[in-house]
């Protein structure tokens, strides 16, 4: 069965600090990988996704993630965080077959102080 592990439950950073959130998945086949963000009181929004090709994926708001197949990892990075990045971040995986369900990690709460 697919599973997703997010290593950091709560990360606290100051503005301008660099961010890296860990994500590892367990699945035997070819996968699609996603990072979603949930701002307080808002719906889940897609930050970035990986289907195939270049393992370094760039998303919205300056976020990027790197797919390392040998490590079953898809870590999220941002060089310099802002106060507005305070949110819950979720890593998710699905089989690369169209229409399959997303499996989410438990999420990482990011708190950025100004």
């Amino acid at each position, binding site marked *: 069965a697919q599973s*997703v592990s*997010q290593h950091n439950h709560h990360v606290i950073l100051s503005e301008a600090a660099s961010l890296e959130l860990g994500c590892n998945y367990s699945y035997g086949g070819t996968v*699609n990988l*996603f990072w*979603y963000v949930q701002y307080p009181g*808002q*719906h*889940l*929004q*897609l930050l970035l*996704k990986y*289907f195939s090709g270049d393992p370094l994926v760039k998303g919205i708001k300056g976020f990027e993630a790197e797919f390392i197949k040998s490590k079953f990892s898809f870590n999220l990075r941002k060089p310099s965080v802002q106060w507005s990045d305070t949110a819950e971040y*979720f890593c*998710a995986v*699905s089989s*690369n077959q*169209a*229409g*399959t*369900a*997303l*499996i*989410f*990690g*438990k*999420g990482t709460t990011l708190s950025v102080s100004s």
Partner: protein
Amino acid sequence: DAGVTQSPTHLIKTRGQQVTLRCSPKSGHDTVSWYQQALGQGPQFIFQYYEEEERQRGNFPDRFSGHQFPNYSSELNVNALLLGDSALYLCASSPLQGRGYTFGSGTRLTVV
């Protein structure tokens, strides 16, 4: 605007009661998935509907059932509510032949 519409936004029910949550998918999407997000947890997959049939199901009891209508909208029904069913219920729509998902804002269910 998320493109996926869920109703109601909030709901309070008593243990043992039944509840129905509704979802209208994004225009052009024909597949609807339902997720339960407990406080402090990631969304857990409940089931997915396509062509009015349940296509995949997560590890949820039979008390959770659903329906999809010809216009692709969907309902989630939960019978015999338990306190542990209190959560944010999310609907996500996608095109079956695509790999993108759009989430609604969710329905916050509180069971007392």
